[in-house]
């Protein structure tokens, strides 16, 4: 049976053959460091995740041109979990135990991350997770290079309060854990800022919701109560296109009711005519339109690698970039790919980000990021209207009942992801 499953060489030859054939040729398996790539290449999430797979391959290619890591070339092992959550766990196990990779870059949805967590803990490996998420998690084996809610949602709300004088809020989201948690946090935050319960409307829709007529009309109605109103959208994926189309056709302009989105980036806008949407906002830690040398070089290299100079870049790509470079730097510093050593070395590692600053990995395994607010332009890009100083990712939100007393610090001697400062105990993780 083991012979049947031993097909690593074939995987590599097929997926990476064209790509790395020349560089790999002279190396036997022992002379390379293996890097796992765990992104869906088929199914519903392929639309977002394929780009990240290509990003990792691009970064590996660049690193190998610079001579690899620790004198060895990097070798990508790509698998396809096919947007199937149990399959994520299975493929993670395959990468770690069969292919013996040193690190894995992967996952997009929260559920895929939750699915692979037990595997990474059991087999003690490292996962870099590059997407903005709901927080409420800090695991020793995971590094979260996307935004926590305080690195995206709260600054966006602050901006709307200050710049637009918004007093009434619609929190619209897809019914899954990221919007639920983000909206819970925002609700508590807004109430703490003195917004009345009547001035907050919360609405949830299913995945891929396509008929937005009633909801957009409700938003319009809610917005005609004499107070400046804004929509905070955590609507996910495919549902955004019909949502924005309906906004445009019902004539809701950004000057009247601005919509700030946390899941709409350059890739999503590529599928919409943005002319009627000019002025609606998005909050991210990176925009393709950032004017910095690092960004220009990254975009240029990306276009050459992917052989298409129309391909956009987006926030999760920057998060992958930061995670990858941090891992390379930590491995170089530690002189080994040993999981425990690298995890310890990673904390405190600082690498440049693409917006002209630096990202540092904090003891809670989240990173520092500046928060950028962008307005949609008619060319599908964002015009950056606000940029904050770097913010530290807050894994356990201060605005949620259950988590306000928790902190995370993976440095010794605490070494705990959910330490309760009131009871003085590390939560029951066995």
């Amino acid at each position, binding site marked *: 049976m083991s012979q049947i499953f031993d097909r690593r060489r074939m995987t590599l030859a097929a997926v990476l053959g064209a790509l790395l054939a020349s560089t790999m040729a002279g190396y036997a398996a022992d002379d390379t460091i293996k890097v796992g790539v765990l992104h869906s290449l088929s199914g519903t999430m392929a639309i977002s995740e394929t780009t990240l797979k290509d990003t990792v391959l691009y970064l590996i290619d660049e690193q190998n041109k610079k001579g690899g890591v620790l004198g060895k070339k990097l070798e990508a092992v790509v698998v396809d979990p096919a947007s199937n959550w149990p399959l994520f766990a299975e493929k993670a196990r395959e990468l770690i135990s069969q292919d013996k990779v040193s690190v894995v870059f992967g996952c997009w949805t929260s559920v895929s991350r939750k699915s692979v967590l037990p595997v990474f803990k059991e087999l003690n490996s490292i996962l870099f997770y590059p997407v903005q998420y709901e927080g*409420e998690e800090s695991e020793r084996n995971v590094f979260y290079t996307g935004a926590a809610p305080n690195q995206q949602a709260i600054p966006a709300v602050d901006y709307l309060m200050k710049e637009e004088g918004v007093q009434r809020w619609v929190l619209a989201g897809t019914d*899954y*854990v990221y919007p639920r948690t983000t909206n819970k946090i925002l609700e508590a935050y807004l109430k703490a800022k003195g917004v009345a319960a009547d001035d907050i409307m919360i609405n949830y829709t299913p995945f891929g919701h396509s008929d937005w007529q009633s909801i957009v009309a409700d938003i319009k109605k809610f917005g005609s109560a004499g107070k400046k109103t804004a929509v905070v959208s955590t609507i996910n994926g495919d549902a955004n296109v019909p949502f924005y189309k309906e906004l445009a056709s019902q004539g809701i302009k950004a000057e009247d009711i601005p919509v700030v989105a946390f899941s709409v980036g350059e890739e999503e806008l590529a599928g919409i005519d943005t002319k009627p949407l000019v002025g609606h906002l998005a909050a991210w830690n990176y925009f393709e339109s950032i004017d910095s040398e690092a960004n220009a070089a990254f975009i240029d290299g990306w276009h050459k690698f992917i052989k298409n100079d129309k391909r956009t870049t987006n926030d999760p790509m920057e998060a992958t970039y930061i995670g990858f470079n941090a891992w390379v730097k930590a491995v170089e510093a530690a002189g080994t790919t040993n999981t425990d050593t690298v995890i310890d070395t990673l904390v405190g590692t600082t690498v440049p980000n693409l917006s002209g600053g630096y990202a540092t990995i904090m003891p809670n395994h989240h990173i520092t990021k500046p928060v950028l607010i962008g307005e949609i332009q008619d060319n599908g890009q964002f015009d950056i209207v606000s940029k904050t100083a770097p913010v530290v990712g807050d894994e356990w939100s201060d605005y949620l009942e259950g988590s306000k007393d928790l902190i995370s610090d993976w440095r010794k001697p605490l070494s705990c992801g959910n330490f309760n400062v009131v009871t003085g105990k590390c939560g029951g993780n066995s």
Partner: protein
Amino acid sequence: MIISFLVDSLDRRGRIVVILLVVLALLVPAGNLLVPEGSAFHVSTYQLTLCGKYLTYALLALSVDLVWGYCGILSLGHGAFFALGGYAMGMYLMRQIGARGVYADPMLPDFMVFLNWKELPWFWQGFDMAWYAFLMVVLVPGVIALLFGWLSFRSRVTGVYLSIITQALTYALLLAFFRNDMGFGGNNGLTDFKDILGFPIQAPGTRAALFAASALMLALGFVVASAVVRSKLGKVLVAIRDAESRTRFIGYRVEHYKLFVWTLSAVMAGVAGALYVPQVGIINPSEFDPSASIEAVIWVAVGGRGTLIGPLIGAVAVNFGKTWFTGVLPEIWLYALGALFVVVTLFLPRGIVGLWDRVVSRRAKPAPDVDGSGRQAGEAA
């Protein structure tokens, strides 16, 4: 008594399957636990859980075949029963975490804590007890199937109509379980299990035991299915499949037969789901996706419907292909799966087993027609 009755019901081929499954239940865990790594006979944990998953899929396929191959009811919603069984098991495993969740809440699962739930909903009560949870694994899919079947068979919803409303059933459940307000963890589902029956779920011994349980449960399911189809009841089922109205006119209460086999099949699917969850470590609403149920149907079709071995072969073969393709040529997988659907329905109406029989019977005598593709389909049109 019962055992000897059940074993007697097996034909030669059936005995081989059961013996093979029992041997598998012993050898594979032994290969994982006892044979040292590096030996040619070592079975890695990865392979062990993978094979365990295939076995639960095989049990699901067997349950689909029981209603489709032997009674002509094409269910496009069997994934729903599989997932319901899985959720019952998942709820038990969630309760077993106890205070070891990240928020250290002794009662509430983590997802309830951060969504500010204050107390455990009523339908989560009792799932901390294994016997209750295991009872629910059987009861929940069973009762829903009974209710659904009683309504549908009584009002003589048949053929295509039945297929489409089974699809509506699983779709409605999919939407329902996605809702966070339902209290089943929404899209993230149930995950991060710690232990089962007091044993840590990630320990090699537990994994091996779960594998063995899956193999033995599949063997049991096989024996039961075989007893059903080879009894007089089974003959009536085939009669219903081939000519429902005629069977009714002869005087059989068609609804009762259908309801029995439908409910039995749902229970088997539920048990398969319950064994699936601890091995893959997560249950989430996507198991309710109508396309998952349709995929289960194709396993049966590939293996050969109307035979009991067919679904086993089909489930393992298709899923092995999936594992292999999604590793080697991810882009090709959907083409391959799509082509499989087309090719099997067009050229292999009796699947791999049918093909095998034909090859064998070329040398011996022609096989009797056990494929009911003609008549029951005509009735539905």
